[in-house]
Every structure is written in structure tokens, then in C-alpha cells.
């Protein structure tokens, strides 16, 4: 146990260092690096947020719904002069509220049925956004004055999204190491057995779903305020939902760092490929990268670094909590 504690001390120190570096990056780099980080962080954040419900073994293909709801809420609010932070948070809250309502029926679905069900849900929300064009502007999309972006600039947005993603990550980590996390893990392993030991499955799943949607909503809100223009086909596109799943799985589901690594890796990979490889082949390489990883590292990228030990580390993490 002592060794573990030492380990975790070192780990903690290392993490602080990383954070410091991340926040200092803007001082040394050009904005275009920041812009790449901003977009990568948005999608990574969604991946981590997605993995919160993913912990329970539920594969949501509909997170674009929460992303989009957050985006539109924040847009509409800021168009009416609500300040940024409030817009972000309310965006998240509305998504969460929506998730809690639809969660009750939807979380009964299992496996692919849940996946496609949520996918359908996202499409319904998409159509609704088109239909309710009195508020959303429908297909014409929703725009904010250019000053919203130009007035703030990359440094501001980078710091903001970095902070958001760090919070998302911390929440994910915290969940993994609380009763909620254990419940989700139990549900993931065996839903019936879980309820036989007293886990109120729907309650915990709903909680996770709500938190996941809340964070996804905030990220959607950020996305909107960053681009200053969104259209339904864009914020509700299934590529956002599927992308999140891909990143999480690519990095390694059910762990906090997995989606984080997967998200950053895939985003940066595609960024680099698109800037330096002729377009057709960049897509090809991207596909090969994904297939290759799934073939040879089904556990995701983290299985390289942590591999077997990651599992034990996690458990010792839990043991820490049960002991100390």
C-alpha cells in the first residue's frame, strides 16, 4: 500500500506539472497550434463525457443530441445578451434535463438497441431543431456577431476549453472512484447481479446519463460560441456521436485516461494527415490506423502503456479508497 501511495504521489506531482505546461502553452506557441488544440479538446471532452455513461456498458450513439442542445441553448442565450459562462452552464443543464427525461425509458434498452435508439433520438432532436425555426432559425442556422469570436481570440478560448476538459476529466475520474463508479462497473459486468446486491440500476444509470449529457452540453455550447455559427445538420451530425465512441474505444473505454488519450490522438492524427498527406490517402491512413489498433490493441491505446497492470492499478486505486 505504501508503495502505491508513493506511486500516486509521484503521479499526482506529474499531473500538476502537465497541467502547468498545458496552461503555459499559449505563451510560447502561435495561435494555430492553439486552434488545433481547441478543436481536439472539444471532441476529446465529448469522448470523456461519453465514457461516463459508457462505464455502465451502455453505448450511446446519440450524444450529438446533447451536444447540439447545448450548442443551441447557449447560442440563443448569448444572442439575448446572457454572459458566456452562464450560457455554457445553462446549455449543459438543458442537455442534462433532456437526458434525464429521455433516460428513464431509453436506459431500459440494452446493447445495440440502446445504441440505435439514441441514434434515432439524436435524429428526432435534429428534425425538431429544423421545425422549431422560430427559435433555432431552422436550416438557416444560428449566427452570433463576428465580434463574439474576434473580440475573444484563441488564447481565451484555449484556456476556457482546457479548463472545461480538465473538469470533465476530473469528474470522470471522481466518478470512477465513488459508489457511482462501482455501481456502473457492476451494471457493466452484470445488470441482474448488480441489482441482486442492491444496486438501483436505473437510478445510477440515469445519474451517469445526466452527468454525461450535462458535460456534453457544455462542450456543445463552447463549440457554438467558438464558431459563432451553427446549423442543425452540423451540430447534430452523427459524426459527433460516433466520433466520441471511436475516440473512447480507441483510447480504451472504462478508464479516465483512455478516452483522453484516444481523443487527442485521433484528433491530432487526422489534423496532421489532412495537412501533410494528399487528401484521399489521409482518409485511408486514418481508417487503417483505427482498424489496426482494434486488431492489435483491442483494449485501446492504454493497453500499450498500462496493459495488464492498468487493471490492477485501478483496483489498488479502489483499495486505497477502501483502506485510507
Amino acid at each position, binding site marked *: 500500500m505504501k508503495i502505491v501511495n508513493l506511486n500516486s504521489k509521484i503521479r499526482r506531482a506529474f499531473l500538476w506539472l502537465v497541467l502547468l505546461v498545458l496552461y503555459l502553452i499559449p505563451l510560447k506557441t502561435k495561435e494555430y497550434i492553439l486552434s488545433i488544440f481547441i478543436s481536439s479538446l472539444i471532441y476529446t471532452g465529448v469522448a470523456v463525457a461519453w465514457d461516463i455513461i459508457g462505464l455502465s456498458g451502455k453505448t450511446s450513439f446519440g450524444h450529438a443530441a446533447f451536444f447540439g442542445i447545448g450548442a443551441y441553448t447557449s447560442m440563443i442565450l448569448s444572442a439575448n445578451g446572457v454572459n458566456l459562462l452562464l450560457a455554457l452552464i445553462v446549455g449543459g443543464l438543458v442537455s442534462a434535463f433532456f437526458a434525464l427525461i429521455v433516460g428513464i425509458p431509453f436506459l431500459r434498452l440494452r446493447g445495440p438497441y440502446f445504441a440505435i435508439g439514441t441514434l434515432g433520438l439524436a435524429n428526432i432532436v435534429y428534425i425538431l431543431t429544423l421545425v422549431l425555426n422560430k427559435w433555432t432559425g431552422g436550416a438557416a442556422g444560428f*449566427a452570433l456577431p463576428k465580434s463574439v469570436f474576434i473580440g475573444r481570440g484563441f488564447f481565451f478560448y484555449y484556456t476556457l476549453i482546457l479548463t472545461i476538459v480538465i473538469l470533465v476529466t476530473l469528474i470522470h475520474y471522481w466518478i470512477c472512484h465513488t459508489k457511482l463508479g462501482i455501481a456502473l462497473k457492476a451494471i457493466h459486468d452484470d445488470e441482474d447481479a448488480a441489482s441482486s446486491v442492491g444496486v438501483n440500476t436505473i437510478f445510477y444509470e440515469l445519474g451517469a446519463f445526466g452527468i454525461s449529457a450535462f458535460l456534453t452540453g457544455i462542450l456543445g455550447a463552447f463549440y457554438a460560441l467558438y*464558431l459563432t455559427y451553427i446549423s442543425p*445538420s452540423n451540430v447534430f451530425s452523427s459524426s459527433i456521436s460516433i466520433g466520441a465512441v471511436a475516440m473512447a474505444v480507441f483510447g480504451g473505454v472504462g478508464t479516465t485516461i483512455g478516452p483522453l488519450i484516444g481523443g487527442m490522438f485521433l484528433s491530432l492524427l487526422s489534423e496532421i494527415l489532412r495537412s501533410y498527406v494528399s487528401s484521399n490517402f489521409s482518409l485511408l491512413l486514418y481508417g487503417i490506423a483505427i482498424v489496426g489498433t482494434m486488431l492489435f490493441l483491442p483494449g485501446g491505446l492504454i493497453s500499450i502503456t498500462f496493459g495488464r497492470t492498468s487493471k490492477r492499478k485501478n483496483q489498488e486505486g479502489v483499495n486505497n479508497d477502501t483502506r485510507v
Partner: protein
Amino acid sequence: MKKALVMLLVVALLAGAFGFAPARAGNIVIQMTIGSTKAYVNSKEVILDQPPVIENGRTLVPFRFIGEAIGAKIDWDPVKKAVSYILEDTKIILIIGSTTAFVNGVATRLDVAPKILSGRTMVPVRFISETIGAKVDWDSKTRMVTVTVSVKEKAPVKIGAAIALTGKYATSGQYYKMAWDLAVDEINSEGGINGRKIQLILIDDQSNPTNTANAYTKLIQENGVIATFGPFTTDCTVPAANIVEKFKVPMLSAGSATAALYQRGYKYYFGVFPPTDAYIPPIMETFNSLKDEVKTIAISYESTDWGKELSSKLKDAFTNAGFKVVVCEERENGGMDYTPLLTKIKSLAPDAYLDAGHTTDEILLARQSKEIKFNPKIWYGGLTADYNFLKNIGAKDAEGVMGSIAYSSNAHTQGNRQFVDAFKKRYNVDDVEYHAGIAYAAAQVLFDALKRAGNNLSPEAIRNAIAQTDMETVIGRVKFDNTGKNMYSFMPLVQIQNGKYEVISPSTVATAHIEFPKPAWGR
């Protein structure tokens, strides 16, 4: 400018039959013989009005000839009796009859002073040449002086764009790339902008706005582009415009037809793609001429900002003109089955049917209209005038279909023929897609602006040059209003008649008379 011409000459000569031309590309070789009026610039004969002479061991040549030959800016000050050469950063001043010359203001000793022979100023060739770093050879047998000026390549002018080369809109995206690549090669083969080659950097954004944002930031900051072309779709254009606005780098967009964009008050954003309001006049001209036959109108539109905007403008225009719009239906963008929509509209039996949509949907709409035998008197599909429509549906079924078109390969616009031929030749295609035409026009405008901006290629200067644009392009005249919109945006109404696109409105440019009513499908 002169240097550019000389360069061009070199290229021309090397390419041409003058096989013996000794000069390497990038070099100017001047050959002259003492006492002979025949001189050669890169083996091209030039007749001197005063032959070179030898003045105590030094060759004197007419100052204007040598100056022009080496591509220097020359000047003659009759008061001070001084001649001056300016070549890049070197300025040489010689005073007639004085053995003191000034190189960038520093007095320098000459062995022999410049003098006037029968009204021509003669200057020491070796001094001039060596001061500007040229090599001078003297052949005593042939008494020939050979001056070799080596011209160093100038840094290219970098421009950039993000465009969809994979993903949802790859099909349209590729046409932009094709047109821009062609335009860039053309201008470079003509010697580029003031002797500087154009370098175009393209990044694939997969029509994902965040990718677009990253791409433009990278282009401006890492690649140091001084001007940009716009991306495709409004989703991507807004963030891109935000970024060029932030970095004050001009953008010439050919990728968004949304009029709303011009209300965002961009200073550096200019668009050549005709915005939706340009569609209306030609359409109305035609419809007004058919008031007796056409009373009821059905409209459908793809659920994009463009489709929504266009359809609402159509609807208003028709209602104001006293037509009855029986339905204005939004529809999926890029679907499979439009039969429900068409059946619904057919049941309303409108005289005319208009859809605001893109090629693939138009193709399906046409096919499925045929399948359910929906034969209105007018069948208009927003962008059916894209030759892909004709190609994917066949002349027989396309007969009588109408559409609007921002660019047509058989329009009699300035330079269009050459462009079309060059495009077909280079990519070995049977026609030019309209996106390519618009993209090419954007390139024409930008390059013209760059030329006008002259040597001062600061983004600000380029921006102002673009703002002052007033020129003929392959899509017609381009002149920007203060919102950056092309005030001559032109969207003629065309109809497919025996497998060809004929302009039927506005009458000023009409190539054929309207075929009305549209024959039943496949007739």
C-alpha cells in the same frame, strides 16, 4: 516588369526553335560587338542606334540599351546631366563627363567618364555590369563583349484555402481544387505576379467547421499566406471569415451563396458566388412572360441555409408578382426517396414546380418525378444547370428542365473559351462544372488584385486592391459593394434543350427561346 518580360523572353526562346541559345533560364546574356549596331539579348537581335566604342581600354555602350537589357529602372536627369540605374537594392548614378560615379550614394572612381556620342549617352559597360554583380567577358578576336546577368528567383506569393476534398462535399470540393490549380499554373507560366510565382496551399477540411478554422489559422500563421480563397458551405465559411477578419488577411470566397453572410460586416471577406437574390430576377422575367399559362406554383427546398434562403426569396417574389404559391416544402438534403414529396406536390397539380437543391437531389427528384408521371409545365431544379445533372439523367429525360447557373461553359464571357479549353484539356473532362467556373473567377479576381497591389503585397494593400476590383471574369463582371458582395452577381435561367444548356433569361444574354410547356419526361 521589364525583368519579367526578359524572363518570359528567355523561356520563349528556350522553348522556341532557337536551339543555339546559350543562355540558361534565369540568366540574361547580352552580347555586343565593338563598332557594330547589332547586339543580342539572349541571342535575340537588337539594333543599337549607336554602336559600342572603346575609350582607353574601356567599352562604352548606350546607357538606355544596357539598362533595359539588364532589366534596371533607368532615369535621365537633363539638369544634372546624370543617368541613373536602379536594380533591386543597387542605385548607380553617373554624371556625363565625370569620372566619379555614385553607387548607393557612395562616390566611386571610374577609369573613363560617360560621354555623349551623336546625342546618345555612352557608359562604361564593365563598371555598370560588375556593380550589379553581372559577369563580363571580352573576346579580343571577335571584339565581342558578353555580359551575363544571373537573375535570382524571387520568393513566391503564398495564398491558401481550406476546401472539402474528402467527406460529404468532396464532389464539389474537387472542382475548386481543379480550377485553382489550373489558374495558378497559368499565372505562373505568365511569369507570376510581378515576377513572383504564386504558391497555392490547399488543406482538406472535410466540411468540418473546426477543421476549417484550424486550416486557415495554420495557413496564415505557419505558411504565411497573404490572401486566401474561401471554403465550401456556410458552416465552414463563417469560422473561416472570422479568422481572416481577425488576422486581417483578405479572403475571396467562391463557396457560399448565402446572402446573410454579407450582413456580418466583414472587412476582409469578398464573395464572387452569386448570392440567392441574384437568382430571382431572371426567373421572374420568365414567369412574368408566362402569366397566362402559369398561375399556381409549388416550391420545395433542401434543408440547408442556402435552400431555405432561396426558397423564401422565391416565395416572396412569386407572391408579390401575383402568383399563387400552393406549397413551400422543406425536404431532406441528400436523401433517397422523394416520392412522398413529389406525390404530395403532384396532388396539388401546380403549373410550375421549383426545387431549391443540389445536383444529386435534383437528379433523384427528376427521376422520381418521371416515375410518378409528375409533369408540370415548368420543372425547375435550383442547380440542375450543373452538367452532372445532364450526365446522370440523360438528354432524353432532361429535356425542358430549367435551372439557374452561376457559370456556364458556353457563356460568352471574357476569357471563358480559353478557360474551358484549358480545363477540358488538362483534366480530360467533357465539360466544366459550375463550381470550377466560379472558383476560377475568384482566382482571376485575386490575381488581378495582387497585380494591382504591385510590389507592396501587404494584406491591407491586397484587401484594398480587391475592394477596388472592377473586371470581366469567366462569370461576368465583378465589382464589390462595401459588404464584399459582387454587385454584378449574375444567375441566368437556363433550360436543357436537346441535350444542351440554353440561356433563356435574362433576354439580354438569352441563347434560345424558352421551350414551354416542358415536354413530358423522356419525350
